[in-house]
């Protein structure tokens, strides 16, 4: 089928995409790496001297870097824990026979389609406002002193909001995987006397293992880059209580205009994301029969 002419035509057709993505990846990447070795602050014209590893040194030894790494880890693992376990439960539940399956599924999945800034604002004001928010009213209604959610439990509050947004994603993917499970296998095991737990541990869970891994890896990639939810609710505070790595880099590059420092942070973020990406790429690659 593939003649020589169609091969060169194919190469021509793919080249715009390849060139664009290559440019999009390489140009900024090289610039980030280059800037990270310069003393370069937009507020100090004429800066641009070679800095060696200084930016990295200052970025890593800054106490806010340690805080940011800690916050990133807590946020990512917290959301992963809630969404994976919650999503698994929700998927198992939605897979059961019931009335109005379509409607219920739509309601569970809906939060995924809400833009991050809207969900953050809605939760912040309508629910977590200490006085007028619904959570605030419940707390005071039960006779407790009002809770300032973003002041007292800032990271937990953001974890909660992000989990609400990502739970539908985990549910949807695990449900899709669950529905591709061979029903006859389940029925056969049931006839052999396996109870629900046996079936769950020995048939469903192994079948879902792959989908669960995919959920964890893809979510990690996206969760490492959480930004809007923090910007809208806490601005990284109080102090550095909700500053993750993404937000810290944003602060040093676009708020303090320290291009060198921000770029050094950017390189570190890229390295961290790549650790996860390698595993994800390997999984996707296995499934690709090109």
């Amino acid at each position: 089928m593939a003649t020589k002419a169609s091969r060169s035509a194919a190469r021509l057709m793919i080249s715009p995409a390849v060139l664009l993505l290559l440019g999009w990846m390489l140009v900024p990447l090289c610039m980030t790496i280059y800037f990270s070795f310069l003393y370069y602050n937009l507020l100090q014209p004429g800066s641009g001297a070679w800095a060696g590893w200084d930016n990295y040194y200052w970025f890593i030894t800054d106490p806010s870097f340690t805080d940011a790494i800690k916050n990133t880890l807590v946020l990512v693992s917290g959301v992963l824990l809630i969404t994976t376990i919650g999503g698994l439960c929700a998927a198992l539940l939605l897979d059961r026979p019931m009335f109005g399956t379509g409607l219920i599924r739509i309601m569970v999945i809906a939060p995924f389609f809400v833009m991050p800034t809207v969900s953050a604002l809605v939760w912040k004001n309508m629910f977590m406002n200490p006085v007028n928010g619904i959570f605030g009213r419940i707390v005071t209604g039960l006779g407790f002193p009002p809770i300032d959610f973003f002041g007292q439990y800032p990271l937990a509050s953001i974890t909660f909001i992000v989990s609400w947004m990502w739970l539908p994603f985990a549910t949807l993917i695990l449900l899709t995987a669950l529905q591709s499970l061979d029903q006859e296998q389940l029925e056969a095991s049931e006839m052999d006397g396996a109870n629900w737990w046996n079936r769950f541990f020995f048939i469903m869970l192994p079948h879902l293992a792959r989908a669960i891994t995919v959920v964890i890896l893809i979510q990690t990639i996206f969760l490492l880059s959480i930004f809007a939810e923090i910007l809208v609710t806490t601005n990284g505070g109080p102090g550095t209580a909700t500053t993750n790595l993404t937000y810290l880099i944003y602060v040093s590059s676009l708020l303090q205009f320290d291009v060198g420092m921000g770029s050094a942070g950017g390189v570190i973020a890229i390295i961290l994301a790549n650790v996860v990406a390698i595993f994800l790429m390997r999984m996707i690659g296995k499934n690709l029969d090109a």
Partner: protein
Amino acid sequence: MARAVSNKTKTINTAIAGTIGFLMFFPILWIVVLSLKTEENAIRAPLEVLFSSDWTMESFSTVQARSDYFKHFSNSVIISLGSTFLGLLIAIPAAWSMAFVPSKHTKNVLMWMLSTKMLPPVGVLVPIYLLFRDFNLLDTRVGLTIVLMLINLPIIIWMLYTYFKEIPGEILEAARMDGATLREEVLYVLTPMAIPGMASTILLNIILAWNEAFWTLNLTAAKAAPLTAFITSYSSPEGLFYAKLSAASVMAIAPILIMGWFSQKQLVRGLTFGAVK
């Protein structure tokens, strides 16, 4: 499931799942309710809000009058549609050639394209920001359209590739045997079979572009801000703004919610790059 299930079991399942569904959906439902209230009533206790009889569309018109809402709404429309169709224009030939004229590099090219999606945006924030500043692209719809097209291009190519791959090559060959020219082959054989896949690719990409909230927040100000960025101007700390915030939010999420409901199944394929189908 093929097994007979008693109505009692079904009812119990429905009750549990329905409760969870309601809790997940409640915040969205609640802003719809608040958007139809006056500001004075929107901050009252939830039950009072629900049973006060002052339903009004006033907030929607106030939002438009006070902040030129539709300018930002149309920014969102232009940027998300523009980036999707621009991406499609580049992705269709690429996906077509990889699916129908595969070479030994095809897999590597696909994986490499995917790897560009793994790059954390913040890693290239500084250079993109500076390039945008130097080329006068900051706070322009053109600039944002290009960036969103580029970040979603790998997903478009991947989705199209998996859909094209499902079209049997024999059909195309048969058409060729019957004397169809390349133009006819593409127009009358390939396109009709590719339309469902293309439709869901378009849908998913509009959703992703509409909700993108890193580049839209960092590269726009007053002029080109789409709804993701514009809505943050409602982030004032206190005061009577629940109804207006709700009205603005409802209008911002409604179109995408509707699209999203239609594209549930394709979403899985698109977001897992074919790893889960």
